[in-house]
Every structure is written in structure tokens, then in C-alpha cells.
């Protein structure tokens, strides 16, 4: 028995949510639905930043330990995937986010009801009801040495504990 976790993506100037996302592909457009294959990232530029947050639903006693990591933050020559956990939403853009390379060992987040953005996130959530974990902001940044085509696939892992 456990909570059900889905991912919500936020886009546009007003952080419009799209629930039940099934991929996190990075691309040259700020939306939740179009294919990365027709919105490719031009060499020596960046993807739009992408914000996705886990949403827990169902019953539980406590939720804690929200942690995000990536299997590889350099999926190809001249390509870096940056990442951070954000409680403030900034309209996605292709300007370099300023984030470090996404962590291979884990970024530890918090929980907040209603929205992942705002103050008051807590490490251990006990209030019951639907709740978001921190929003993960990703961006693919490339240099002139990046090669054509798909990168090697990488895996984002979200871990948590519940009682």
C-alpha cells in the first residue's frame, strides 16, 4: 500500500500545469506535449528550462526524503544537463539557467500542498491529502562541439519514503 505518484509539468508565464506527464524530454519549445524530435536543440544553444514536480495522492501517515538524481549529466560530447530544485517559478527560457550540472547523488527537496512553488515547504509532510514534492528544473546546455542526433538516454530517479 502506498501513495500514487504522478508528475506535473508547468509551462508558460503563469506556470500552467499539465498533469500525468510521461516523459521529461528536453527541447527547444516550452510546452508539455510536442515532440522533441521536431523541436530540436540547435548546437551551441540550450533547451528551454523544464519544470516537473511529483504529486502524491492517496492515503499516508508521513512523506519524507524527496530526492532527485540523474544517471548521467553529460549524455554526449559538448552536452550538459543542469538541474536544481525550485520553489520559485521563472518562465521557461533558453537562457542558461545558472544551475549546476544535475546531481548524480541526489538533490533533497521538500513537500508542499497545492503547488510546489512558494514558501513553507517541509522535509516531512504529515498533513494528509494530495501534496507536491519540490519542482525539478532541468535544462540541456550544448557547446559547439555537440554532435547531431539523440543523446544517450539518461534516467531521472525520484526517491521518497512514506509510512
Amino acid at each position, binding site marked *: *500500500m*502506498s501513495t500514487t505518484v504522478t*508528475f506535473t509539468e508547468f509551462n508558460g508565464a503563469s506556470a500552467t500545469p499539465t498533469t500525468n506527464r510521461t516523459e521529461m524530454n528536453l527541447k527547444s519549445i516550452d510546452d508539455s506535449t510536442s515532440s522533441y524530435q521536431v523541436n530540436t536543440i540547435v548546437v551551441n544553444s540550450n533547451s528551454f528550462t523544464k519544470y516537473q514536480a511529483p504529486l502524491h495522492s492517496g*492515503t499516508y501517515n508521513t512523506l519524507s526524503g524527496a530526492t532527485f538524481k540523474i544517471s548521467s549529466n553529460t549524455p554526449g560530447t559538448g552536452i550538459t544537463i543542469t538541474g536544481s530544485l525550485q520553489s520559485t517559478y521563472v518562465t521557461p527560457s533558453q537562457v542558461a539557467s545558472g544551475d549546476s550540472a544535475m546531481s548524480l547523488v541526489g538533490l533533497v527537496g521538500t513537500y508542499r500542498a497545492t503547488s510546489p512553488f512558494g514558501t513553507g515547504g517541509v522535509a516531512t509532510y504529515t498533513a*494528509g491529502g494530495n501534496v507536491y514534492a519540490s519542482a525539478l528544473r532541468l535544462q540541456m546546455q550544448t557547446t559547439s562541439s555537440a554532435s547531431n542526433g539523440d543523446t544517450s538516454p539518461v534516467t*531521472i530517479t525520484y526517491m521518497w*519514503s512514506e*509510512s
Partner: protein
Amino acid sequence: MFLEVEFSDGFILNQLKQNDVSMFDNRRNTFYDIVNKLCEKDHGKMKRLSLYKDNRKYSIDWTTVPNDAKPVCLKTFSMDINGIDAYVQKLVNVEFGYEYIDAKTKKIIREVEAIS
């Protein structure tokens, strides 16, 4: 995987049979009722706490644990997102047992078993 508790009047609280919904707050789960001892008013003290997982049963005789002990059942999950598979959540580990405050040191003592 599910929990089951037996109380002194013979009442059995089973997480599956409760559909993992608290009998006192429908936003909470059965473990909320267990850890806060919400059934003891009607059914007396806990006698046994059991965890069933992968056709194995892990039981604690609750009459032998310290008076102020609280049940521990902490499940750790992971979910991989790789653009290929659907987002699938996997149970990685369960810590099952109890914790209590040591009367002399005032420190929390955790007596738990890691079940993968």
C-alpha cells in the same frame, strides 16, 4: 505488502481490508491509526503487529516492547523517468519494527529490521 494488528479484545485491523484508509480520517492510511493507537480506546492494547510481504510474515509481540514504543513501518520507493518506460514506482526497502525513548538517555532507540 500489508500490516495487520491484533488487539487484546481479539479485533484484527488489516490494512488490505481497510483499503489502507484510516477509520478516523479518510486522508490518512491505516498506519496512521496504528501509530497513533486510535483503536485502543475501543479494542484494548495492541497484542501483535505483523507485516506481510512476499509471502513472508514478520511479527512483533507487542506485549514485550517498551510501554511507550511506537510502530515503525517506513517504506522507501524509487521512480525512474527515462523517456522510454512509463513512470513506474518501485518499493526499494521497508524498515519494520518500533522505536521508543530510552528512559535514562532520553534518546530515541529504533529497533527495526530492513526488509528488501
